[in-house]
C-alpha cells in the first residue's frame, strides 16, 4: 500500500502549489491597478533607500549553518538507535546499547565544547 499512502502526500503537494499559484493569479486578475513610479521603490520609511541589499553579512551566520549540518546529521544518526533501544532492552542487551549511545553523545558533546571554547557560540563580540 506504499503507493496509496504516498499518493496522499502527492495530492497535498498539488493542493499546496495550487493554493499558492491560484491566490497570486487571482490577485493578478482581480487586483486594482493605480500605478505611479514611487510605489515601486524599495521600502525605507518614505525616503530614498540607503544601502544595498547585497552587502556583506556577519560570518557567524555561515558558521552556524556549517555547525548545524554537523549536529543535524548526528541527530539523524541517533534516530535509528532510539527506535531500536527498546528491542535491545527486551533482549537483555540494555547496558550495551546504552554505552554505545553514550559514547556517541560524548563525542557529540566534545564537538559542542570545542565550538564553545573557540567562541563560535558568542554573538556579542
Amino acid at each position, binding site marked *: 500500500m506504499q503507493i*496509496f*499512502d*504516498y*499518493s*496522499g*502526500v502527492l*495530492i*497535498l*503537494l498539488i*493542493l*499546496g*502549489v495550487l*493554493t*499558492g*499559484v491560484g*491566490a*497570486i493569479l*487571482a*490577485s*493578478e486578475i*482581480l*487586483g*486594482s*491597478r*493605480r500605478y505611479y513610479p514611487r*510605489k*515601486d*521603490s*524599495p*521600502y525605507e520609511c518614505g525616503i530614498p*533607500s540607503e*544601502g544595498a*541589499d547585497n552587502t556583506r*553579512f556577519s560570518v*557567524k*551566520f555561515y558558521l*552556524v*549553518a556549517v555547525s*548545524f549540518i554537523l*549536529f*543535524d546529521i548526528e541527530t539523524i544518526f*541517533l*534516530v535509528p538507535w*532510539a*527506535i531500536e*533501544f*527498546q*528491542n535491545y*532492552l527486551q533482549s537483555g542487551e*540494555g*547496558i550495551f546499547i*546504552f554505552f554505545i549511545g*553514550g559514547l556517541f*553523545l560524548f563525542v557529540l*558533546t566534545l564537538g*559542542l565544547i570545542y565550538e*564553545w571554547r573557540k567562541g563560535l*557560540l558568542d*554573538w*556579542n563580540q
Partner: protein
Amino acid sequence: MEDTTILWLFLLGKIVLFFSVVFGAVAPIMIWVERRVAGLVQDRYGPNRVGPFGLLQSLADGIKLILKEPLIPQGVRKPYYLLAPILAVVPAALSFAVIPFGPPTTLGGMFETPQRLQIANLNVGLIFVMTVTSLSVYGVALAGWASNNKFSVMGALRASAQMISYELAAGLAIVSIIMLSGSVDLMRIVESQAGLWHIFPGFLAFLVFLPAIYAETNRTPFDLPEAEAELVVGYHTEYSGIKFGLFFLSEYSIMTTVSAIAVLLFFGGWNLLPGLNWADIGIDIQNSMIGTLIAVSWFAAKVAFFLFLFVWVRWTLPRFRYDQLMGLGWKTLLPIAIFNILIIAGFMVFA
C-alpha cells in the same frame, strides 16, 4: 480487505476535510483570536465588527488582500520573488500529511477493519514532519534574498539561523520521545501513551521542545526576524497583498501543525487522561461513531489549548536580543537535550 474505491474516496475525504479545516477554518480563526486577544490584553476591543464577535474578519481580510494591487517593487529578482510565497505555503500544506487526528476507527461499522484517521500512513511519520517543517526555511530565505531590500536580507538571515539552530534542540528532544515509544509512527507514539503520557518521563524534553517550536515558527519571544522596531517586518517587508497573505497563512498553519505534534508527542494525543482511558469510562472510540467524534474533539481541544498558548505568550513576553537567542539555543537547550537523552536512556536501562 476493503474495496479499493472506498479507500480512495475515504482518502480524498480526509484530505479535503483536513485541508479545508486547517487552511479554511483554523488559520483564519487563529488570526482573529490573535488580534482579539491582543486587543483585550492591551485594554482595547480588537476586531469585533465583521460577523458575530468579528469572527468573519479574516475572511474579509482575505478578500481585501486578493483585491489589492499586485505590486512588484523595482529591482526584485522576479521569479524568485514570486516563488517564495508558494514555497512558504507548500511545506505548510505538506506538514499535516502524517498527523493523525483521531484513533483508528471503523466509523460506526462502515469499514470492516479500523481505518487510520491520517492522510498518509508513512512509516517514517515523525521524521517526515520534521523534514517538511524545516523546508519552510527556504521560503523565508528566498523571500529575503529576492526582495532587494536590506531589511528583508537581514530578516531572512536571522530567521534562517534561528530556525536551523532550534531545529537541533527540537530534534534531540524528539529523539528521547522516540526512545520512550520505540517508533516514529505517530499513531504508535500515541498508543504507547495509553497509560502514562510522555510529558512525565520526558518533562525535560518538553522544556526544550516548547521554546524550540516557538523559535522555529518565528513567534514571540523569538520573533527577531520580524522585529518591527529594527527591521520593519523582516523578510516579507516588500510583500504586499495576497503574497503577504500567503506568508501569514503558512505561519498560522505551521503553528497548528507544531501544536498538534506537541500534543501527540507529550500529551497523549486523543487519550483521555494519564492513567484513565476512554474504555474505562465506557466509550468505544474505535467502533462507535460518537466515540470517535468525542476522541477527535478531545484531541482538537488539546491542540486549541496549545494554539492559545502561542497567542498568550506573544502578548505577555518581551522579545529576546539576538545574542541571547542564539545563546539560549546553543548553550542551554542543546546541552539540556543531550543530557536528557542520557537521563532517559539510563533510567530505562537501570530502573
